[in-house]
């Protein structure tokens, strides 16, 4: 699909990022960009630094060196909730849902940056606030329909199977109407059918809402299918950056995946 698609300006640019934890170099000199409207995959073996990269992008980790330019503004770090305000939403490798809350409430939390009412009107739950709540509920119901999770609307998410939890987490991120959506292994631990569903959701989100997506995924079939461009990391270093066909034939990538040491 990469060939027919054309993309807009650069939405996010990562330059010369270095991140280490004590002696562990999680990221070394990473450089890439994400263009508006594309699906950008980040791949690499376990411990390559993929999750760390997403954490740097949304301000959860602060790199020791390097700059991140998002929507034209360059910075070396920001707070996660600022990133959220700037339109960056994400899901986690280890699901980070609010376990005691229902599916509906979890996804509703994704709307909170769009909700404006003050404390008093919430306490009254009347008039203006009720209208606001219902308007946002309608948005959330659209997402629930889209993700086909109507039946579990009122179920506490702690009781849901893994695959559905991943879906709810995607729903919460989508509810924020992000410009940039970061997905950390959205299909890990899923069976083929669930993976197909999730792929469809990702493609449709990108297609219909125009959401830019950065995706970490281990299933090479899925990644090559979904993504427009890939970054390959290995031991925190950037091995390759390009379209699926280029990356597939890159010798360094093949070596890394086959475990060949230089």
């Amino acid at each position: 699909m990469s060939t027919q698609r054309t993309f807009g300006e650069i939405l996010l640019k990562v330059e010369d990022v270095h991140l280490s934890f004590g002696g562990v170099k999680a990221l070394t000199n990473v450089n890439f960009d994400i263009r508006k409207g594309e699906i950008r995959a980040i791949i690499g073996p376990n411990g390559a630094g993929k999750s760390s990269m997403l954490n740097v992008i949304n301000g959860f980790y602060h790199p020791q060196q390097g700059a991140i330019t998002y929507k034209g503004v360059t910075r070396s770090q920001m707070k996660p909730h600022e990133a959220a305000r700037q339109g960056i939403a994400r899901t986690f490798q280890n699901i980070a849902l609010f376990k005691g809350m229902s599916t509906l409430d979890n996804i509703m939390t994704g709307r909170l940056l769009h909700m404006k009412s003050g404390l008093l009107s919430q306490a009254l739950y009347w008039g203006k606030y009720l209208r606001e709540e219902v308007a946002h509920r309608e948005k959330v119901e659209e997402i629930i329909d889209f993700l086909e999770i109507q039946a579990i609307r009122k179920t506490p998410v702690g009781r849901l199977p893994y695959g559905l939890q991943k879906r709810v987490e995607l729903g919460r991120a989508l509810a924020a109407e992000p410009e940039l959506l970061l997905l950390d292994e959205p299909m890990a631990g899923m069976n083929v059918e669930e993976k197909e569903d999730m792929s469809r959701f990702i493609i449709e989100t990108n297609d219909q809402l125009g959401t830019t997506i950065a995706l970490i995924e281990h299933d090479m079939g899925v990644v090559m299918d979904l993504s427009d461009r890939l970054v390959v990391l290995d031991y925190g270093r950037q091995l390759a950056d390009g379209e699926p066909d280029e990356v597939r034939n890159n010798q360094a990538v093949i070596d890394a995946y086959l475990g060949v040491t230089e």
Partner: protein
Amino acid sequence: MFYREAGQFKTSYQADQAIFPIRQDLYAYIAFLAVAFIGVPLLASDYFLSTLMLPFLVLALAAIGLNILTGYAGQLSLGTGGFMATGAFAAYKLSTAFPDMHLIIVFLLSGLITAGVGIFFGIPSLRIKGFYLAVATLASQFFLIWMFNKFGWFTNYSASGVISAPPRTVFGDFYITGPQAAPVTKYLFCLSFVVLLALLAKNLTRSNIGRKWMAIRDMDIAAEIIGIPMLKTKLIAFAVSSFYCGIAGAFWAFLYTGSVEPLAFDVNRSFQVLFMIIIGGLGSIMGSFLGAAFMVLLPIFLTNAPHMVGVEISVSTLSHLEAMVFGVLIIFFLIVEPHGLARLWQIFKEKMRLWPFPH
């Protein structure tokens, strides 16, 4: 009558957002209010009102306050007593310094003052959690009680350190506080306030701020990443919680006991309210009432039950027995059912919804 939702289809999200989406629940609630507002005042004795209903209502209010902070926002607090004392002393200072101030204003201002104190003592919650936060709130508990004991200004330099509610009326001639106040007027006043405040609390917990609190409780890192400002959201929880505890403290001193010393709000009170929300149900407004009812009724049950079956138990054994029963129940609820009596009630209702068909 069957407990069914069959045939009740929601035609709008607004209807689905109602507090009682199932009609039978709404009827039950209205019936309950009718009993509380009409039945109880007509039938109950003064003794029953002032020794059972008033402490029940006041403790329920404090439990709602703590439940907002601990049950909903997940911030463990052992400072409830201190906040109740703040409300009581604020009400005392306000009503004696401004004798013309309307009692309702006095109570609301006491709540607001306590909210301010709560915000101050809530600031460490940004850095510390769980057990450590509990210890920090415990420190605030001791500090506040020490302060009210230490400085005579708070008691208007009363020699005994006891404050007594000055007689005040509302709506013309109805004495709400002071020796002339009839238990039934106090009860109705207190009930109206508590019902109203409980409704507002319920609304808060099911709206945007409530979801923010629960998000912080369930996973604070994820909450921050979806854009919830940590400190502000936690401090709002402290403020709202302390507002409720403050009014509860003011009611305790003004409506229930009439006069009070700081010791009434010592750390035991904090634990008592904490036990109530554990037994009644963490994260449930209804559970706050159930827990308070349980706390008020159990001692009476333990006093009378052995007597009825012809066993005589000494007073000291009784108080030991009481502590043991609470201990066992708290361990039970913490391990088996953290959502307390409120959850058991919900499970019962879910069963009733399907009854008599098992699935």
